[in-house]
């Protein structure tokens, strides 16, 4: 059977992506779903839940409300909760049942906005696709809603787009900020981690955007189109690639190239080492392995990404368990760097270096997720 996972887990769903993307921005996230438990989106997928408050709610959709199309209860509950909690915005997310009944979240959001006066947007999640789609929509919606023209700041201001704990360990926001600073640049806003909505409102003052996962790409494309801010994709992993990424950022800020996004290209070859993971993060690791250790690594990205990231797998996104198994069996790489749970599809004779990914294996190996930013990676991948 096609696309059936017998061994591998699925990447976490779009709703978790939304909650993670918006977690620190002071908004209210409402998932229109049955039950009343929000632990899937928070405790399981959100390490910040244990020491930082956020407003993530489930609407507790009932069978009768679903059958009758009773949107009014969701609308009035949101308006009432907003009157108590004064969120900076309200984000509405769908789940499988509203998908089946065709709930129009854009229209409901408009009604809530009209009644509460609070910026409200509907996100087209349904719980059946990956966190990349959800976080991507959420970041783009926030940018559309809150970014306006402001004067450019002195020096090279940089926005970080696409950083959430689903792809990066806690503390990565500090690492990237220090790296920017060490390279004579200044962070304006880190949209997913470590910044507030006030920082978001200053994003147009930046001269360049750094997209650190594909979840930030749609927002970056919007900022490129409407604010002429150029976009570079890459995580400053290791030392050598971190240095070259810093140079690329400075060059992009000065030249204002806005017609395309630049991606780490070292991953597009046919290396004997395969890195499985999120497109920008894993391709950056490929580039870092080349720069710091002379290793030719190629990318296997099972998640949604730009088509270019699929070049090393023949132009196709390889994501079904059987396809992943077949690809690795045929290629027989010397080494695979991937989440520990991928061990079940890695062929015998291939070395597996474990690189836990929260969006894939949850909290199981959370404490072992290394921070690769501007650090010596030789010990990790020797």
């Amino acid at each position, binding site marked *: 059977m*096609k696309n059936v996972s017998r061994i591998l887990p699925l990447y976490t769903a779009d709703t978790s992506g939304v909650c993670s993307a918006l977690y620190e921005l002071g908004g209210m996230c409402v998932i229109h779903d049955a039950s009343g438990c929000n632990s899937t989106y928070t405790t399981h997928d959100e390490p910040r839940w244990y020491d930082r408050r956020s407003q993530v709610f489930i609407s507790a959709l009932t069978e009768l409300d679903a059958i009758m*199309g009773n949107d009014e209860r969701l609308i009035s509950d949101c308006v009432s909760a907003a009157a108590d909690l004064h969120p900076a915005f309200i984000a509405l997310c769908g789940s499988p049942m509203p*998908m*089946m*009944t*065709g*709930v*129009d979240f*854009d*229209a409901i959001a*408009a*009604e809530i906005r*009209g009644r509460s006066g609070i910026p409200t947007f509907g996100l087209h999640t349904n719980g059946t696709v990956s966190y990349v789609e959800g976080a991507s929509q959420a970041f783009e919606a926030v940018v559309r809603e809150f970014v306006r023209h402001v004067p450019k700041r002195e020096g090279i201001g940089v926005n970080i787009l696409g950083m959430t704990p689903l792809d990066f360990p806690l503390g990565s926001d500090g690492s990237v900020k220090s790296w920017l600073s060490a390279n004579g640049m200044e962070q304006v806003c880190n949209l997913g981690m470590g910044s507030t909505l006030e920082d978001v409102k200053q994003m147009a003052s930046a001269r360049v955007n750094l997209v650190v996962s594909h979840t930030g790409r749609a927002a970056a494309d919007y900022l490129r189109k409407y604010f002429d801010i150029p976009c570079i994709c890459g995580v400053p992993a290791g030392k050598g690639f971190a240095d070259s990424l810093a140079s690329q950022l400075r060059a992009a800020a000065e030249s204002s190239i806005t017609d395309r996004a630049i991606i780490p290209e070292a991953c597009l070859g046919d290396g004997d080492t395969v890195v499985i993971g999120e497109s920008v993060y894993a391709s950056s690791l490929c580039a870092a392995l080349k720069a710091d250790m002379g290793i030719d690594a190629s990318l296997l990205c099972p998640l949604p990404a730009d088509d270019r990231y699929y070049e090393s797998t023949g132009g196709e996104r390889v994501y079904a368990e059987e396809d992943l198994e077949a690809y690795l069996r045929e290629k027989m790489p010397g080494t695979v760097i991937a989440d520990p749970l991928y061990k079940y599809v890695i062929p015998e004779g291939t070395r597996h270096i474990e690189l836990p990914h929260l969006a894939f294996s949850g909290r199981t190996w959370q404490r072992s997720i290394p921070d690769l930013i501007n650090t010596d990676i030789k010990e990790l991948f020797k």
Partner: protein
Amino acid sequence: MIKLAIYGKGGIGKSTCTSNLSAALAKLGKKVIQIGCDPKADSTVNLLHGDPVLPVMDYMRIHDEEPDRIEQISKIGYGSVVCIETGGPTPGLGCAGRGIITTFSLLEQLELFETVKPDAVLYDVLGDVVCGGFAAPIREGYAEKVLIVTSGEKMALYAANNINSAVKNFEDRSYAKVRGIIMNRRDVEGEEEKVGVFAKKAGLPVIADIPRSREIIKYEDMGMTCVEGDPECETSKRFLALAQLLIDEDNRG
């Protein structure tokens, strides 16, 4: 762009009116897309000389994957009208409304409007606004105006009233508004008066009066619209007049 959704009681002649209106708009030089939103998938058959297009849901059932090109789920009919049918599940199974929503998001992914660049899009929707899926054609970004097809028959008027009320329920949302009534005559006694009373009560104009005609049946038997078969006949003239009215309105913005 002219963006219309056509609703009305089952069997009242929605597909006939929609196809003839598409043909009339095409005859007046407009690039038209007609999307049948009914599991029966017979909206566009008279634009295609009886050779139907493969419905989107059938494509997905056969291939077990989404189409990646518009050509796989469309056919070019009379007057270069791009014909698409959502199709739907086997009667008695599944969820037809969901099929419409899935088709719409697919058409968006395939960038149908950006590729075809139509002057007019017509959604021919099954019977009543029975669930969220059947309201999808009147959501923001799709149809802007609704035309209700009715005769003077009691049940047709009853359905027309239901449709009008359903659309009014969405007044707070940026949904389509009812533009008017197409009176598709069945030669019921006092038909004009009955439809007129309903129209007045609902505050809607009767914007087309389609006579009961043998031409429609004759040309449908030949797999074509009346507008294609005999553009000079009275029925065709009525559709051409309606098309011109909609074009003029669109030009005025």
